[in-house]
């Protein structure tokens, strides 16, 4: 007989042990999978680490991937803290990038720094605006935000596709449907060889931490997340807080879109957010919505991604197999959270007198 009981008194050390155990098990199971492909697991693991951190160029790539993940996860965490399930960060990022691009299109010939500043603001505004409709309908009519934000993603993607095939089609693209590459002077500057997005990400982490833990708005968000009735009882303007917090969540995603556009891709495409909007959900959750945790988890996540893509070329492991490895590791790490919250125990069965009647 297996019994599952909720456990509220798991200590920090126990939690760390459980998570480490999950990683170990993940590595062991993955090793079996690698062995089946006739590779040495140890070599593959070492290669994964090397691929992510081994050389400065590799570490740099990992960091560049970490930046959007941190910013978006912070945004998602704000909404999640309120139990508003914003899974529309992807679309909000795309619209942020779109608004940023719009600045370049509308005001050509402005000096570079000024354009970047306008793009920065536009990215924030674009993301916030795209988060507004679901927030409004949730606050006013109780519409399901999960579906609403999800659907908004697809609208945003299609919108970019439409722009690429019509209004914003690059005349120099030889008939291909794509939007013109941005001029070189709209690229975010670099500091220590990495674009300044990393400073923005770290600064935002500090700000979000203070916002959620030390400000009135942050307190209101936490109360609403716990119980709207209690929030109303305390005299909070629930609608206003919900709408503003979700727009803030969208604004961060939009900013991510702008940064990716300006610093990484230089060209607006429908996959400018590259799925980060969805990965951020996992990251925010794993980090338990804490800002410092998000930095750490984002970095580890990118490390895994980089490592996985490196072993593809290093060992000729096909993409699908590499993805299986990634999935196995995530499966065990995410699954371990269950064992932190619940205890599973095995108990003896009932005595035969009753057991007979039962079976």
């Amino acid at each position, binding site marked *: 007989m297996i019994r599952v009981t909720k456990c*509220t008194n798991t200590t920090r050390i126990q939690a760390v042990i459980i998570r480490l155990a999950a990683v170990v098990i993940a590595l062991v199971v993955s090793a079996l999978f690698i062995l089946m492909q006739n590779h040495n697991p140890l070599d593959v693991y070492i290669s994964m680490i090397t691929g992510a951190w081994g050389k400065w160029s590799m570490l740099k790539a990992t960091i560049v991937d970490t930046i959007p993940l941190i910013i978006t996860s912070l945004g998602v965490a704000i909404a999640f803290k309120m139990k508003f399930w914003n899974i529309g960060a992807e679309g909000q990022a795309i619209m942020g990038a779109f608004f940023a691009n719009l600045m370049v299109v509308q005001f050509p010939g402005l000096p570079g720094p000024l354009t970047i500043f306008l793009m920065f603001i536009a990215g924030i505004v674009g993301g916030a605006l795209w988060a507004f409709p679901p927030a409004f309908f949730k606050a006013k009519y109780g519409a399901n935000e999960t579906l609403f934000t999800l659907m908004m993603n697809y609208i945003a993607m299609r919108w970019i596709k439409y722009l690429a095939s019509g209004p914003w089609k690059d005349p120099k693209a030889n008939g291909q449907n794509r939007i013109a590459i941005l001029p070189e002077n709209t690229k975010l500057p670099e500091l220590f060889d990495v674009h300044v997005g990393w400073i923005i990400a770290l600064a935002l982490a500090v700000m979000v931490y203070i916002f959620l833990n030390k400000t009135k708005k942050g307190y209101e968000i936490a109360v609403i997340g716990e119980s709207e009735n209690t929030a109303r009882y305390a005299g909070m303007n629930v609608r206003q807080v919900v709408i503003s917090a979700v727009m803030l969540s969208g604004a961060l995603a939009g900013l991510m879109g702008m940064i990716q556009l300006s610093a990484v891709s230089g060209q607006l495409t429908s996959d400018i957010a590259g799925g980060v909007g969805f990965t951020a959900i996992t990251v925010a959750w794993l980090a338990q919505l804490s800002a410092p945790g998000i930095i750490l988890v984002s970095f580890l996540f990118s490390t895994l991604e980089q490592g996985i893509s490196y072993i593809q070329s290093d060992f000729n492991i096909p993409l699908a197999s590499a993805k299986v490895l990634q999935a196995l590791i995530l499966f065990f790490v995410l699954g371990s959270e269950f064992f932190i919250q619940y205890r599973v125990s095995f108990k003896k069965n009932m005595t035969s007198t009753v057991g007979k009647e039962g079976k």
Partner: protein
Amino acid sequence: MDNNVVIELRNITKTFGSVVANKNINFNVRSGEIHSLLGENGSGKSTLMNVLSGIYAPDSGSIFIRGKEVHFNSPKDSIKMGIGMIYQHFKLVDVFTASENIIMGQKGNLFVNKKKLSLQIREISEKFGLDIDLNKKVYNMSVGEKQNLEILKVLYRGAEILILDEPTAVLTPQETKKLFEIMRNMKKSGCAIVMITHKMDEVLEISDRITVLRKGEAVETVDRNSTSAKELINLMVGRPIDLSVKCVPTDKKTPVLKVENLTVYNEDKAKVLHEVSFELSEGEILGVAGVAGSGQKELCEAIAGLYPVAGGEILYKGESLVGKSPRDIINKGISMSFVPEDRLGMGLVPSMDMVDNMILKDYHTQKGILITRTNARKMAEKLVKTLDISTPGVNYPIRLLSGGNIQKVLLGREIESNPKLLITAYPVRGLDIGVSYTIYDLLNEQKKKGVAILYIGEDLDVLLGLCDRIMVICDGKITGIVDPRKATKEMLGLMMTGKSEKDSEGVNNVD
């Protein structure tokens, strides 16, 4: 005598984390007896019963049913052994009829032989005096009827051992009498009945034996005939307690709150308050008596600005509160401490600690955008001391505290905010006797300060003792406002079921 023992618990221990809910409990029940399990909240009654009904597995100790040791893995196992549990919150499907509820989840053929079934059920209900219309839908039933149905359900499923968890909490005095009649009938036919309660007079009226629990331990099992209320309270609390509730006289009589023809509809557009009118003065406690769900919640929330008002007026010192935001109303010094049935539904934030809960209603008065928690921490620490709140610390999430302590946190905060009008609903629900009296004293102290208090209560004895006037409501209508010095419990009971004051006057005994 020992042949009659149907349940025996030996050395049952159950812990939750570091909390010992049951410690080496020994307890037995004989057939044909009503055994009361008496204890304050948090003394381990419910845990013990959940062990017996298979919801919890004990950490150690053994359960014997009719002399055989058993291990329950789920409630199913205990049902098989003939144990039936009647919970405080009924487990019935509202849109089903009585008979559908009874047969639901039963093994058997695909098709139900209705005739045979109703014959069986009728037989049981007649035997015990359970008065039920089998074709009535549950949502049309009164609380008493629902309870009868629950009992019928477990009896039909073959229960010979019944456990009733605070069965009278939701009943009027008249319904309670009926229930006791049924319990006596069951006893006559050889059932064993365990009743969990903390109401002294009921224990003395119905039980054969009484086991008193205190802080997770079974202090003593006594025979009804050789004990007294005084002794039981001593055992329960561990020290003698004065059980009279005092109504403190005050002379301030300026009306503070005036409610005129207040009408309120709920979400389903049903009228839940019908033209309610009353006045409340400074230094007065106005009690509200009524069966649960008669509009008490809506009345409180309407005054606090949380419920839309469809008609009528709420005047606070001559100023209308209708249409004002909850925050405006809080700022006027109107405080509501509503303790809902699940305690945490409104008023407190469960996963936050005490400090964060202290600032819930006044955080917005702080300057700037940041929140300082220094004062809140001091206040929380003060409350822990003055109200004797047991918690590992003020930074401990309150959802992990016991019910009584949670309530102390809530009421403590409300009183600390120096209200002018205090609306309090079920402030002692779930509290132990000692603390209940602390709360009554706190309310009386507020009253002496000139605070107007609207007290929504459950225990009629307390209402009669504590209040200056008692307003009785039934189905959202006021059936009368009476003077407690002239009223009786029976009279209030009749008024709670809709009889007017005149019809209920002079009634002392109802059978």
